[in-house]
């Protein structure tokens, strides 16, 4: 929202620089995110520091500062033809000097005044004298220039009448800036003092509906700076016949439309608005249209009370020549309206409408209809100022997809008391600038006045919430600055909220909180001291799920993996890529959490698996990386049964692909491509680090994986996830042709539940170990796990360690067989083992392996 300081000062005196005002507003919750300077200099920080003892920081502005000597308010007294050029004229300008200055200019908007002799009414503009700095009007890029004397087609020329663009007001450079009034300043006045301004861009949070206008901001400024607030004039000159009998109002839904007011202005002339009004509208970003429409916009921006003007004669025609009745109601089924934006709308059942007996006129509080709008031939104006329930207006704007300045204000809340003020100020302004006569009286239907909000606030409550002591009188004084009426009774404040404060609740507890905030805000948050919490410390609780998860992350990083965090939205089709064509899916059978308003076709549901994003990440990274070892920890979302909310179990996904070692400059050290056992090594490392005992591995039955090179992790008889080589068809889908991709998706919660934070630590052995190797040949079908079980069973207590160090097939091992070789460690704390003892255990191992595994000892 743009707030010109020149307009703001109509309502409150401001004796601090704009930068400090911006800082004050920002601290109070009206965030000023930009200050725009028009012609006037920026305040120097050193000046702020010296004069106001404030260190306020703001970006240095690169706007054009209008030279007070060389850019002056000028009056064009006559426009003469240029003797040598048809496309140039000579503007004779009074800028306060003894003689008129002759400016050669090509401004097309002066041509209509050419050769008319001295003008009966001078035209006002800004004249730049030799040496003045202005923006180059002909440059596409912002470029400054210094005005130099330069004859134009044989006529000496040392000054210039300026366009908006040359002064940095707007991009307008078609013609020069022209006013028909002197704006209260004599020729020769520095242009800064006439047109110079500062515009604040204020961002409003939803609770600040009351400040959604120049006057609304002025009210905040007045309370923050503790200055008096000057209300605008609401007097109306009513010289016309009484309005009674010329229009009636019928409100059908007072809860949606608590108030509706009308005033009638007759015999007007539609024409452009006066310069001062047009200028203000432009400063707040509006395009002037005509004197009637401009006033409705002006009041929207000045008071925050939007107005709507009807062509009264069209209403009379619709009523068959009789006095029209304005009806506010909800639509009939299928009713339609063509609005000012040339859209024909089918109305929703909740859209509150302004109608007459012939049908719909406008979408109440949001946008007018095309049929009864003001036109160039309008003679009589019926002016509406109404009040609307803000929630309903919000719904209408959202379902009708229409955004207007009026709707923006009504949808945040405008108090019904404002309607009568808006209609009075609006009709009077229209009267002044359109030459019409106001009918006596205002039609004011007010079926549902809101209750006045009264709150009792104790000083104890202020202390309790803020932690800083205000006396009842101090608190009352702070509230009064914002227009609250306060009576103090002992330690209790009896507060009546002003109409503008629709944010103050009548609920006793909430209302107190609202007032406490106001007291803190007006006193300034900076004035509230900092303390350390003195309240009792809550019971601290263990947080194993989170602590263990972080431990798992650390372990995975130590194992060389890089953490990913991916979008948690995907599509069923993306996830279906994990199912090879023609095979059944092994993905979770739950339903998806489906988005009703997906942001893109690529993100329609919440994921069921982490593997897709890891594969997609790996595919994207493959261009730049020969080796990727990734993991992600996060939720999947499984909609189960009838429960509206899904399960959100946490999963661990791992993906490894490419070279085993990190490629460097020494040849041959990368040593191959990662395989199943690299991945298993990571999983074993993780289980070790988490002190999870008793993991076992079974063949996986998961169609996303290679049937022979994947495993299920089993913890205490329960499956805790799958890992292994992805099915080659899936790897290929993600661009890994002939490049095995190792992947895991583990149930993190099951895993972490099995960690043993109190695992026993073995004492360091006091006796020396005895090492022996054993190698034997078994059938291929014997698994490493089976072999180790047998060795350990036979080895008993004396066998401390079993380490497989070689698996071999090929000559001289017979076909269908393999050789397994182990380092065995024998040790007991009780004594140093003798060779004889070791030999006896070793023999037992050999014998049991022969018997149970069909093993054949190798030499």
């Amino acid at each position: 929202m743009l707030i010109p300081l020149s307009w703001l000062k109509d309502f409150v005196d401001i004796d601090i620089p704009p930068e400090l005002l911006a800082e004050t507003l920002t601290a109070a919750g009206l965030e000023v995110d930009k200050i725009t300077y028009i012609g006037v200099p920026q305040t120097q920080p050193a000046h702020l520091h010296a004069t106001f003892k404030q260190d306020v920081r703001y970006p240095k502005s690169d706007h054009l500062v209008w030279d007070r000597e060389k850019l002056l308010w000028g009056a064009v007294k006559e426009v003469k033809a240029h003797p040598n050029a048809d496309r140039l004229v000579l503007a004779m300008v009074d800028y306060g000097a003894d003689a008129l200055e002759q400016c050669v200019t090509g401004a097309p908007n002066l041509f209509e005044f050419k050769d008319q002799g001295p003008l009966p009414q001078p035209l006002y503009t800004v004249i730049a004298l030799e040496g003045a700095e202005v923006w180059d009007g002909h440059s596409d890029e912002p470029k400054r220039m210094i005005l130099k004397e330069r004859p134009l087609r044989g006529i000496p020329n040392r000054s210039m009448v300026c366009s908006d663009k040359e002064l940095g007001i707007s991009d307008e450079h078609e013609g020069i800036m022209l006013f028909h009034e002197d704006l209260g300043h004599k020729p020769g006045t520095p242009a800064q003092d006439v047109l110079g301004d500062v515009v604040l861009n204020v961002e409003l949070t939803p609770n600040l509906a009351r400040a959604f206008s120049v006057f609304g901001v002025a009210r905040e400024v007045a309370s923050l700076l503790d200055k008096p607030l000057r209300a605008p004039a609401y007097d109306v000159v009513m010289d016309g016949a009484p309005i009674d009998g010329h229009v009636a109002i019928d409100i059908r839904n007072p809860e949606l439309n608590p108030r509706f007011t009308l005033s009638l202005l007759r015999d007007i002339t539609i024409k452009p608005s006066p310069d001062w009004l047009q200028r203000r509208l432009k400063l707040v970003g509006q395009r002037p249209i005509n004197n009637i429409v401009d006033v409705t916009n002006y009041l929207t921006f000045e008071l925050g009370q939007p107005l709507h003007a009807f062509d009264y004669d069209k209403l009379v025609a619709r009523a068959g020549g009789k006095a029209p009745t304005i009806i506010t109601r909800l639509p009939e089924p299928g009713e339609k309206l063509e609005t000012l934006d040339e859209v024909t709308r089918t109305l929703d059942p909740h859209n509150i409408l302004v109608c007459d007996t012939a049908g719909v006129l406008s979408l109440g509080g949001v946008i007018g209809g095309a049929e009864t709008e003001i036109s160039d031939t309008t003679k009589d104006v019926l002016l509406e100022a109404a009040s609307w329930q803000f929630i309903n207006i919000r719904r209408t704007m959202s379902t009708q997809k229409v955004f207007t300045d009026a709707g923006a204000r009504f949808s945040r809340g405008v108090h019904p008391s404002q309607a009568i003020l808006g209609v009075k100020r609006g009709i009077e302004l229209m009267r002044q600038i359109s030459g019409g006569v106001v009918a006596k009286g205002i039609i004011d239907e007010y079926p549902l006045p809101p209750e006045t909000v009264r709150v009792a606030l104790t000083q104890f409550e202020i202390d309790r919430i803020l932690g800083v002591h205000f006396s009842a009188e101090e608190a009352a004084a702070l509230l009064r600055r914002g227009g609250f009426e306060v009576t103090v009774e002992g330690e209790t404040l009896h507060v009546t909220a002003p109409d503008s404060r629709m944010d103050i609740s009548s609920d006793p507890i909430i209302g107190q909180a609202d007032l406490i905030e106001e007291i803190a805000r007006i006193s300034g948050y900076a004035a509230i001291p900092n303390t350390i919490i003195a309240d009792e410390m809550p019971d601290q609780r263990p947080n194993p799920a989170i602590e263990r998860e972080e431990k798992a992350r650390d372990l995975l990083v130590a194992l060389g993996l890089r953490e990913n965090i991916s979008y948690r939205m995907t599509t069923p089709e993306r996830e279906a890529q994990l199912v090879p064509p023609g095979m059944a899916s092994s993905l979770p059978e739950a339903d998806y959490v489906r988005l009703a308003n997906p942001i893109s076709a690529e993100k329609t549901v919440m994921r069921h698996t982490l593997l897709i994003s890891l594969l997609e990440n790996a595919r994207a990274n493959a261009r730049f990386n020969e080796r990727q070892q990734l993991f992600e920890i996060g939720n999947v979302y499984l909609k189960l049964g009838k429960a509206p909310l899904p399960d959100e179990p946490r999963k661990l996904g791992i993906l490894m692909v490419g070279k085993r070692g990190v490629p460097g400059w020494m040849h041959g050290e990368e040593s191959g491509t990662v395989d199943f056992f690299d991945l298993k090594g990571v999983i074993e490392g993780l289980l070790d680090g988490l002190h999870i005992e008793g993991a076992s591995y079974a063949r996986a039955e998961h169609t996303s994986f290679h049937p022979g090179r994947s495993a299920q992790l089993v913890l205490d008889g329960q499956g805790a996830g799958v890992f292994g080589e992805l099915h080659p068809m899936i790897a290929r889908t993600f661009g890994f042709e002939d490049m095995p991709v190792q992947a895991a998706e583990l149930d993190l919660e099951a895993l972490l539940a099995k960690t043993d934070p109190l695992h026993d630590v073995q004492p360091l052995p006091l006796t020396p170990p005895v090492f022996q190797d054993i190698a034997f040949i078994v059938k291929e079908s014997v698994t490493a796990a089976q072999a180790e079980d047998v060795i350990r069973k036979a080895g008993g207590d004396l066998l401390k360690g079993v380490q497989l160090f070689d698996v071999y097939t090929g000559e001289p091992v017979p076909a269908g067989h393999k050789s397994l070789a182990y380092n065995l460690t024998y040790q007991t704390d009780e004594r140093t083992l003798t060779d004889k003892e070791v030999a006896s255990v070793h023999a037992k191992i050999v014998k049991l392996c022969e018997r149970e595994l069909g093993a054949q000892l190798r030499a």
Partner: protein
Amino acid sequence: MLEQLETQYKDAAAALEQISDSAALAAWERDTLGRGGWLTGMLRGVGQLPAEERAAFGKRANELKVALTGAYEAREELIKAQELARNLEEGQIDVTLPGRPRPTGGLHPSTQTLRQFAHVWADMGFQVFRSREVEDDDTNFTLLNMPPHHPARDMQDTFYTTEPNVILRTHTSPGQIRAMRELGEDGTKPIRVILPGMCYRYEQITARSEIQFHQVEGLAIGRNIRMTDLKGTIAAFARRMFGADAQVRFRASYFPFTEPSMEVDVECFLCHGDGCRVCKYSGWLEICGSGMVHPVVLRNGGYDPSVWSGFAFGFGPERMTMLMHGIEDIRYFWGNDLRFLEQF
């Protein structure tokens, strides 16, 4: 015999002088003083000499043995010194060659920042509380004082699901309600938690805005929690996070679930308040929204707002990470480009 001893001694001593590497020295030692060496052999043969020659020969042979041993040790020392010198001279490598790369892993930058937060807040007694991401509309909005069609709902564009009233949480604040109901024991116990987690907003994905981002919400509930405590606690956090002299300022703001509400700015840690591009020349960086828990929210959490009070705050770890490391594009975070991740 003695003559032969002397000759061989001379030859051996001379040969020793010529030796310049440890392999030749070892061979000399083996042939001369070693078990099979000539001198050892001669000494061993003393018994076979005529008795009258034995004493003199034995004496002389031992003398020469001592002399040769001494010379050998001196030579050995010399050669070692020479070899060391040679090694130091010749063993030069190109120290500018890159090292042998080690496989290293790493945590995602968001995780690192989240941990930093959790760590600092844990020191102040705020424990982590985790809460769901797919939420019901009530918990995400209504119970937080944002009834249907409340204007504040416009501040948070929402992902809806096909299940009525089920949405993706737009902030971690619904965790406040869940924490109060789960830990508060019907409004009888104080609470101090942080709620880190992923949130979702229906927005265009651009360099500045994401549909998915982390928040770290904080909540303190007690019988004596005041706005001064909120200010002091946030200021203490800022000092821990950004340095002992970190300045903070509090600006009035609006969140439906707190009142009074405030934005917290920390003095720009890049320009120390002088004004720079990152802080848009304001000298301040917005780091956190905060406020006193709204009475409606306390009530919905099971607490009596006339007895209990509390404060809440919320940080954006990705934004913080971006500020700290000069990251200009928030899309890097979920892009998982290793060239980005490996910089952390």
